[in-house]
């Protein structure tokens, strides 16, 4: 299948449909409006569900309802709207329901700006909602990867009965690149959704979707069940890419658009005889700790580069576990650095080690 030039948001919408999305619930917010706009037409034309909800809070609760009734449901929003959805996401994770949440990240905090950012990292990985839960979170760096992971997300969500979030910065949502929407994805061994409220059962067989566990021992049992699931996900679902690791003197850790910018930085450094590699997380939860075990002995330091004032840095420090010096480079507010800025950050590190 040939490649088609598409805007990130449109590619996300089409990929979701190809991944089997039955229902979309959303609300307007810059910079992801092309997703609900595309789906408002597509879903209605194909007998599927589309609702522009009255708010992001309402939308995530519609997702909860649809997912609870056994269909593949999704929503999309941007940072301040994702903040509104946290209660709903906690409920969905607690009730062990699958769904896809797309976050096209913009500058914050508060209303912030509309330009790209990665300042939702903590909101995504440290749970913005209450209780012991996690969302499985992907942070693709280009449109092809985004399309592939959106398609796969419904399989993963159904397999683990957990919300999956795909976090792209606003640049990825707005940029256009050629994509192949029909690349095959890994299918999982999925069981029938015997827990879903399909409106066909009574008595002992009836299905109840809830997150209430008033007895503390019961709630502990439930939380430990979720905990065991998350351990399994951490073991099996870490995804990352290693770039230019051989004989590297420094390693950059970056994801999304920042990692693409850093790829150019690595080329510029190579031209100057400085060997720099990169660990590129593709999942930000579970964090790809395993990648840090593949850092070669030649490395003298790690540079964590983010579009924020430093949120992933904590996971880098944890994964590093005291082995190497760790520096931080960040631009925030929607400002995108030029590759030369990261080159300078590496050179500064060279002077320090």
């Amino acid at each position, binding site marked *: 299948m040939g*490649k*088609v*030039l598409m805007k990130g948001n449109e590619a996300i919408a089409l990929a979701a449909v190809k991944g089997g999305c039955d229902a979309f619930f959303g609300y307007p917010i*810059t910079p992801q409006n092309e997703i609900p706009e595309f789906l408002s037409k597509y879903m209605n034309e194909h007998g599927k569900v589309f609702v522009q909800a009255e708010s992001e809070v309402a939308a995530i609760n519609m997702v909860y309802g649809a997912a609870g009734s056994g269909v593949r449901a999704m929503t999309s929003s941007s940072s301040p709207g994702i903040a509104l959805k946290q209660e709903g996401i906690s409920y969905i994770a607690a009730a062990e329901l699958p769904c896809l949440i797309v976050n096209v990240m913009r500058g914050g905090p508060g209303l912030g700006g*509309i*330009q790209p950012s990665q300042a939702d990292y903590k909101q995504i990985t440290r749970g913005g909602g209450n209780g012991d839960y996690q969302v499985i979170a992907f942070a693709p760096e280009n449109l092809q990867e985004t399309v592939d992971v959106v398609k796969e997300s419904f399989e993963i969500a159904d397999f683990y009965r957990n919300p999956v979030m795909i976090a792209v910065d606003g*640049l990825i949502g*707005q*940029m*256009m*690149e*050629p994509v192949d929407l029909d690349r095959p994805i890994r299918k999982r061994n999925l069981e029938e959704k015997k827990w879903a409220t399909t409106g066909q059962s009574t008595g002992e067989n009836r299905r109840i979707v809830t997150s209430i566990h008033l007895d503390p021992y019961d709630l502990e049992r439930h939380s430990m069940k979720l905990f065991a699931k998350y351990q399994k996900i951490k073991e099996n679902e870490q995804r990352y890419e290693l770039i230019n690791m051989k004989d590297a003197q420094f390693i950059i850790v970056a994801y999304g*658009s920042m990692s*693409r*910018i*850093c*790829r*150019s*930085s690595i*080329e510029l450094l190579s031209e100057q005889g400085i060997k720099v590699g990169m660990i590129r997380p593709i999942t930000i939860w579970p964090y790809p700790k395993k990648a840090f075990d593949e850092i070669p002995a030649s490395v003298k330091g790690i540079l964590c580069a983010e579009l924020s004032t430093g949120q992933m840095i904590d996971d880098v420090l944890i994964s590093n576990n005291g082995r190497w010096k760790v520096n931080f480079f960040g631009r925030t507010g929607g400002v*995108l*650095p*030029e*590759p*030369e800025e990261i080159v300078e950050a590496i050179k500064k590190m060279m002077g320090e080690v």
Partner: protein
Amino acid sequence: MNMNSQKVTIAGFGGQGVMMIGQMLAYAATEENMHTLWFPSYGPETRGGTANCSVTISKKEINSPVFAKADTVIALNLPSYMKFAPKVQQGGILLYNESLITNPIQPEGIRVIGVPINDIAIKLGNPKVANMVIMGAYLELTHLFSEEAIVKVLKKLLGKGKEHLIDINIEAIKAGREHILKTRGQSC
């Protein structure tokens, strides 16, 4: 002219058709199986405000979407000219809208070429095709794509209901090319 990769920034105010110019280049690149990346940058206002987009066209996979300096900057209004003139690579091209920008500062080491796109478009009978005039000028200066390739993209983009606009847009592209051919030798 390095045909391995081209970085182009197009800037103006919302409503001047800045995005379309960049997208057309990206579509043409896709048609020819090249790597390409287009992205926009704009303020929240629907009209007025500033708008710019960047396109990279390359034979290799594209790394950073953002670049410090462009091979070509196309500036459609004065604030865009002021902002992006310093961001042209040495030996690159600064192509600007002479109808709105008169006697601008000319940075050293780059080719600075003005085209009176609004005047040309008005003369053609449709002020809205000014952006295609500068597209024509760009094609004539760089030969990045043939006129046919761009017209093919134009026809696809104009789509249903807008076929009647195809001819005037093609005329605009030709007028832009002609202007460059006529004034060649007069640019610095």
